[in-house]
């Protein structure tokens, strides 16, 4: 019984081999070199990987960049691990990824062993309802509004009405950026903590006394963008630094250590001119080179 089974198996196997050979014979000629070519490329594809790790706020920027990069370099894979700026910086310093991503500048002790390259700037717009008469707030006033020290719009250039403070959930990169620039970390008294930029815009648009913050690129006509210290946020004012509520998107690499060829190629791509359009598409503002 066992023996016949084995025999049958061998028979089937040889038949399969023969037909495979026949098929290969069919496809010989012009098609064959192309085929071997693509198969070697495929093996490369699984090998060349550029790993990035860090800031969750940079998800969109990295997404657009890596997508476009992979389109051009089909043999490379770009991975992104959204762990947060601190974790990303740590990962690159421990060599667990090629490029660390951070939405804050490096601290002094971090800068000793790491290099930071700004690839984009994120402008955070402070928005109010279109019916609000406030036009211009200082960073200090904004901080006071968010900590509850100013609780009525008449103390901030608006008409009488209790301020409704809208913010993002504790993990939001925008919240982190906003709170660290206005120095209101852990001191904000929110009326609402919403989980997306769209929710913030929607809520501010529907409440005449609300104030919120959102990435500049996400702002729509349904809300009014405030000037900060007399400067309206725009691509130009963010780039020249006159608009205060902004932060850098940084790629972090190890000092004095060469990136792998693939990682270096992606790095050059992300910091090159051709990346600008992609960065703008992703809602951030490219740096002036």
């Amino acid at each position, binding site marked *: 019984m066992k023996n016949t089974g084995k025999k049958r198996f061998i028979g089937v196997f040889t038949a399969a081999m023969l037909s495979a050979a026949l098929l290969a014979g069919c496809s010989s000629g012009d098609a064959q070199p192309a085929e071997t070519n693509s198969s070697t490329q495929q093996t490369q594809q699984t090998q060349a990987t550029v790993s990035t790790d860090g800031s969750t706020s940079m998800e969109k920027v990295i997404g657009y960049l890596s997508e476009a990069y992979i389109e051009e370099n089909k043999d490379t894979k770009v991975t992104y691990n959204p762990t947060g700026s601190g974790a990303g910086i740590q990962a690159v310093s421990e060599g667990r990824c090629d490029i660390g991503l951070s939405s804050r500048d490096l601290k002094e002790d971090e800068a000793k062993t790491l290099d930071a390259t700004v690839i984009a700037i994120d402008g955070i717009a402070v928005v109010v309802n279109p019916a609000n008469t406030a036009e211009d707030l200082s960073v200090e006033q904004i901080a006071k509004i968010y900590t509850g020290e100013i609780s009525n719009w008449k103390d901030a250039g608006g008409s009488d*009405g209790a301020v409704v403070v809208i913010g993002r959930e504790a993990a939001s990169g925008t919240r982190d950026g906003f709170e660290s620039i206005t120095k209101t970390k852990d001191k904000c008294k929110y009326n*609402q*903590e919403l989980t997306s930029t769209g929710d913030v815009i929607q809520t501010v648009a529907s409440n005449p006394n609300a104030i919120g913050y959102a990435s500049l690129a996400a702002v729509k006509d349904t809300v009014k963008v405030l000037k900060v210290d007399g400067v309206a946020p725009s691509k130009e004012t963010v780039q020249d630094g006159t608009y205060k509520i902004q932060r850098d998107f940084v790629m972090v690499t190890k000092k004095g250590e060469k990136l792998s060829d693939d990682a270096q190629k992606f790095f050059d791509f992300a910091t090159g001119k051709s990346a600008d359009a992609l960065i703008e598409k992703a809602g951030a503002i490219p740096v002036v080179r």
Partner: protein
Amino acid sequence: MKNGLKLGAKLVERIMGGIFTLCGFAAVLFVAVITVFLFVSGIPAIGEIGLGDFLLCTVWSPTSANPQYGILPFITASVMGTAGAIIIGVPIGLMCAVYISKFAPKKLRGVLREAVSLLSGIPSVVYGLVGMIIIVPAVRTVFGLPDGANLFSAIIVLSIMILPSVISVSETAINAVPHEFEEGSLALGATKTETVFKISVPAAKSGILASVVLGIGRAIGEAMAVMMVSGNVANMPKLFGSVRFLTTAVASEMSYSSGLQRKALFSIALVLFIFILIINFVLNFVIKRKKD
């Protein structure tokens, strides 16, 4: 030959029996796994924080420099939200059930039942969306508040969400009341309204009670819809203040939490699970009493 057929049939029977038994125990298995998982992952954080601090401290700030893990705001918000939904939703649901069962013309009855079952099929995120765009601004203007995203808006949304279970279970209970009871009442000269409220509803009491418990279960476990209308800030609840519930506390922080914060979220889920267990025991008790 005949014997062999019989043997084959027996074998199939055996195998199918095994498969059925396996499927039958699937539910038990899942419940057991979830229970064990919640207790195993929920207990350590409670031990670390301290049961008293965890349940009775009023400050939840896991990401601040000096983290605090008090879930009393979530517990009270969940209890108040559920209680409010029951207070508003049950009378409306009960009246609706009475209307469908006793007063509605036959044709309308079908339409109403259809509408109720449709209401129960609407995804909770849709309730949340409608609440966010209609109820929140409406609450703001009606009560003259600076902001409409508060406990009250959540209560309104929850009361609408519990309606289907309250209506359908109560209606079944009222329909099950023997006709003789009502006919006797009517024969004695009581009006239809008197009959319904003095005879039918009291006779269907335990069924209606079951519908209320079911409503409580639905309200306390809801996350998505209330997250969108309650403001989602971890305050001690006020009727017109922004609140966060047990469910939304887990949902809004789970994606990024780590360390003790993550463990504490499992503990919150455990507390919620215990609430649900209690509600289920009450429900079983109510149904059992009904049978006796």
